[in-house]
């Protein structure tokens, strides 16, 4: 039976050692190459066309996510599957999402055990996706949380930089004329910004605006 050929990409030789031993101890997979940075990884991928690449996200030269994209493109151009598994110390929704979007088939946190890692390699080489269990226990609640409350839902987040600045000047009690002079923009522009701010924040009075600015700590009560 042909073994799955694995390329290890990590800038820490000791980590590669550990991974190599774990992989080579398996009957169905073998480490065919090792790289310590992104450029070297790409060269070896083109040369050896491995079945899987264990790719550290934090490489000294390039972002691992970028290398994943390039490997994916190469894999499509030669019409041969090269499965990328991202290795990362960070558990973050946007990183996992981006890794998958860039063509990776797996995302594993670096604290994963070696049995888990070989399991992941087997999994992706059989054309499936693999995510660390931590991804589902941490990312999904995080995903739900960030889509229910916090950041995304707050109307203040909709303000542009300029609007933030004007929001504050209004809250500090400056007139449109003063704001226009201070920012060297026209009175009309200030009026337009002011209307946009009120609309974005869904506010209908100066008092509401002040109350919100105090709540945010932008101005003092």
């Amino acid at each position, binding site marked *: 039976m042909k073994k799955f050929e694995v390329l290890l990409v990590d800038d820490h030789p000791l980590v590669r050692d550990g991974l190599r031993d*774990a992989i080579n101890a398996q009957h169905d997979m073998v480490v065919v190459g090792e790289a310590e940075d992104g450029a070297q990884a790409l060269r070896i991928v083109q040369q050896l066309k491995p079945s899987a690449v264990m790719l550290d996200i934090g490489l000294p030269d390039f972002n691992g996510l970028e290398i994943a994209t390039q490997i994916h493109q190469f894999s499509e151009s030669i019409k041969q599957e090269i499965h990328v598994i991202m290795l990362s110390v960070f558990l973050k929704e946007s990183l996992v999402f981006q890794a998958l979007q860039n063509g990776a088939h797996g995302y594993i946190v670096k604290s994963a055990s070696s049995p888990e890692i070989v399991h992941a390699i087997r999994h992706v080489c059989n054309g499936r996706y693999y995510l660390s269990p931590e991804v589902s226990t941490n990312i999904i609640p995080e995903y739900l949380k960030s889509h229910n409350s916090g950041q995304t839902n707050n109307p203040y987040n909709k303000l542009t930089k300029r609007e933030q600045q004007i929001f504050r000047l209004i809250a500090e009690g400056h007139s449109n004329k003063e704001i226009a002079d201070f920012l060297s923009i026209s009175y009309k522009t200030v009026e337009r910004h002011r209307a946009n701010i009120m609309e974005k924040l869904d506010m209908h009075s100066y008092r509401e605006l002040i109350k919100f600015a105090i709540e945010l700590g932008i101005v003092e009560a």
Partner: protein
Amino acid sequence: MENILDILPVGVFVLDNSFHVAEINSALETFFGLAREDTVGRDKRKLVAERICHIFENGEAFRKRVLATYDDNTYIERFICHVLPINDLQERWLEHSSQPIARGAYQGGRIEVYTDVTDRVLAEQEIHWLSTQTMQLVEKEKSRIASNLHDGLGQTILAIKFSLENIHESLKKQPKTFERQQADLKKTITWIENMGREVSSISSNLMPSMLGPLGLEETLTWLKEQYASLYGLDIHYQSYGLGDRRLPADLEVAVFRVFQESLNNIIKHASAKHVELKLVYSHPTIIATITDDGIGFNPDDKVALGTGLRIMKQRILELNGNIKITSQIQRGTTIRAELPIQDNHHEKI
């Protein structure tokens, strides 16, 4: 009278009630490069505008400030001015201190005293420079130790763990023979995992490794969870207007430190139950607010303020920011720090 004034180490102008120079002393001649015979009897306003203001850094401000005292000769004025080393003058810092003359021969006039405060100003500059350097050094050193821990020790621990796991896997193939060794290994693997977590936590407290790649939002969420789980505090964190926007690296570190130092302070002294952390991007500044419901303290009391907060204050001032600590005994504490995102201040109109 002139002889007596000449004994003084400070420079003196005595002005009569029409602000003509009545007397000057020799210290003043030296400080200003003026000769007594060209000065006494002349209109001080003209002297200021024509001859004196040019010797100072920011001479225009000096002129305005001094002339204002003649327009309204009722108050005490005090400020520091900087004599530039031009036309054979010695560079020095002088403290201007002036007040109206209430009685005697020059009643209705004004007396101006210039004290040489060069030593003090230079010492202050030196202290300021040293404290900035020290802080940068500390920050650099923290970063260095953190990355050594994370990249060096942390990765080695990881490698050892892999290696032990590999041995464990191979022992599994002979379950009967190595039962005890397997159990021991399992235990060792757990220890090494704990060790890895500890190293990572020490390193993250020094300088969170996620701050660079992931930014403030993630790092502060991590910080919040860290303190909530370690100390059983109810911590609420909310950010406004930041989104995925990244700030200059040193500013991100500074903002992180404000939250970290405030939380450390709360843990150590506040006996608080609830803490609210807020980060608001209010262009062109960023505002960090930390509110707790603890025992509070008198923020004017330097001892009560503690080293941590005093250092934090200094750091913020160096970044051209400002900080306000509001606290009352038994009523909790609010720390509000505001930092400019670029160098330009958010000036009041």
